[in-house]
């Protein structure tokens, strides 16, 4: 008896919510100026073509799954952008699947690959966010859809070179870079080249710190940049182990710096570790992620006097990409969403909320944003050395930390 009752109430709830959903859908689309007549017709007609959903706005929104990973700030970013997008385009619904960083980014690409190999489309993953290495990894298996301005109009705002770097397989929607953060009270003229930086470190013993490279990208970038300093420029895109023989000079340099860095060779853990030292004044200069510095200055965690500069040649940096699995069945809806993400509106959210660099060219952004990134959002380099990074960390641990 009781069970029957539950079923009935469940059914009626489902029915009611379905009604509400359709109601929302049609009233929402009615507001948009285009296709009003078509929409209200589609709302009642049962034979509306399902595949015309994105362009011909069916009353029932197309829902697609968006997998992304990262820290809490990434989640907050999407929690802001997605509702704004859904308000503007009621015919598309984005289903966020957030995977906290360190818990399963690798399985997501494995899932896409496994679904493809099993002939099951894209495994219900319609949009995916990750870094350069995943783009190249999936490229080998032909996982990603080629994107262009014909599908996503706002891609015209993106630097064509950035798109070419990933063979148009991904949308670089934001980026950040490792920069040199320093206390401008103590350091009047920050170094602008690597050699000048080394001189500064030796001239100011204990006043520079970089974090343990295996625990955070900022320290890692300092180490990698130092190792590749004396190597040809093309080497930073080389992932063949034969190049490891040429690392000796770089490691010798890092070893030598050991006695001049903070605490005669202390490398705090995590990117935040060195930022803490900068905040309490124990050191005056550190390599750090630009978005972390900007955010912590704006929250008052770092003093106002904290400034940033990029070296030439620059530290590691680069975009975070949005990828569309080739076998996704809801590409039209995804394109619509991507188009919104690359609009100056959504990009302003990236800048204001995350303190990231916009994915579109700065000239498309408001003037005040352009000013705030002067000298910082440029000059960084994208290192793509694959699994050699593991070997660098390993060798750093034995050669530099435990010398």
């Amino acid at each position: 008896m009781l069970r029957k009752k539950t079923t009935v109430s469940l059914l009626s709830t489902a029915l009611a919510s379905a009604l509400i959903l359709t109601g929302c859908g049609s009233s929402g689309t009615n507001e948009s100026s285009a296709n009003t007549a078509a929409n209200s017709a589609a709302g009642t007609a049962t034979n509306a073509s399902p595949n015309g959903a994105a362009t011909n706005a069916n009353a029932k929104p197309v829902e697609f799954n968006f997998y992304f990973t990262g820290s809490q700030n990434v989640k907050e970013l999407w929690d802001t952008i997605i509702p704004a997008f859904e308000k503007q385009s009621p015919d598309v619904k984005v289903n966020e699947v957030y995977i906290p960083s360190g818990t399963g980014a690798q399985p997501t690409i494995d899932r896409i690959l496994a679904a493809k190999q099993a002939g099951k489309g894209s495994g219900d993953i319609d949009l995916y966010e990750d870094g350069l290495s995943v783009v190249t990894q999936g490229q080998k298996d032909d996982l990603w859809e080629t994107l262009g301005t014909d599908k996503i109009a706002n891609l015209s705002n993106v630097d064509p070179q950035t798109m070419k770097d990933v063979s148009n397989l991904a949308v670089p929607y934001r980026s950040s870079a490792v920069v040199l953060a320093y206390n401008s009270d103590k350091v009047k003229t920050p170094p602008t080249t690597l050699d000048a930086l080394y001189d500064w470190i030796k001239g100011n013993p204990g006043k520079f710190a970089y974090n343990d490279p295996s625990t955070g990208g900022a320290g890692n970038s300092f180490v990698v940049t130092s190792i590749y300093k004396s190597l040809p420029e093309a080497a930073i895109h080389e992932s063949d182990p034969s190049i490891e023989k040429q690392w000796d000079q770089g490691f010798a340099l890092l070893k030598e710096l050991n006695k001049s860095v903070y605490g005669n060779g202390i490398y705090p853990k995590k990117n935040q570790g060195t930022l803490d030292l900068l905040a309490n004044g124990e050191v005056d200069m550190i390599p750090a992620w630009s978005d972390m510095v900007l955010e912590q200055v704006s929250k008052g965690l770092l003093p106002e006097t904290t400034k940033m500069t990029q070296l030439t040649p620059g530290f590691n940096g680069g975009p975070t990409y949005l990828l569309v699995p080739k076998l996704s069945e809801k590409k039209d809806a995804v394109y619509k969403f991507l188009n919104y993400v690359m609009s100056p509106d959504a990009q302003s959210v990236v800048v204001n909320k995350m303190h990231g660099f916009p994915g579109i060219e700065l000239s498309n952004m408001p003037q005040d944003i352009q000013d705030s990134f002067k000298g910082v959002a440029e000059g960084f380099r994208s290192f793509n050395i694959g699994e050699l990074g593991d070997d660098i960390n390993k060798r750093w641990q034995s050669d530099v930390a435990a010398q």
Partner: protein
Amino acid sequence: MSKKMKMGVLGLLLVTPSFLVLLVIVVLPIVLSFKESLKNKSGGYDLSNYEYLFTDKLMRSNIIFTLEVTVISCVLVLIISYALAAFMRFSQGMAVRWIKRLYMIPLFIPSVIATYGLIQLLGNHGWANRLLLAAHMGQLPRIIFDIKGIIIASLWFNIPFTTMLLGSALTAIPNSIVESAKDVGAGRLQIFFRFILPMTYKTLLVAVTFVFMGVIGSFTAPFLLGPNAPQMLGVSMEQVFSVFHEKEQAAALAFFTFLLCSGLGYFYIRSMIAEESVKNALLG
């Protein structure tokens, strides 16, 4: 079925759930990681990972460092906890009341927060140093990013529970024993070494086991407070596993840590069994 047999079956049934849980979450993982640790680079099985563990300079110094931290922490924790527990048992007054109220507090503070608290307090620019500086009393030696930091953190994490354990053992000692010993003229030290210490020896062993295992497997504090090299085994394991992606070496390291702990566990269980058989002999 005889009554005895029925009781036996019931006993087995009661033990089964805990045995299954133990099997799935303890025994199987150990067997699996042992198997993993024997895999070599070419896919075969040998002891190369263990060889690396004991021949690599870095790994050897990690192992020595870990044992050093663990042994020093164990000794200090036991001395301090025993003193605290004995003080609370045999004295009265304001100080005892306050210690009783306060000594459990560290148990309720999450380890990450406690660790950052220690950094704030004892760091180079922490407030302990700032106070000393204001009072023109020089500077503390480097504590954070050093072995001292890890030991201080282990003291903070382990003293409350150990004190509690030893406290309950000391409470179990009847006052009459102490008093009658006094009556026949035993001195304070004699009472302690002849009566109190032997009567709490078992609990002491339990406490050593807990502290040893807690410190040897610690991660948060050594990760945030420790030096970059040598590292404690927990930190090194994490690095080998998730940064260097050397699953087999990490497994070897984990299995070695397990062996160290089970060595101590052996003494613990042996003394427990000895106690049981004494009891049985007395009762039977």
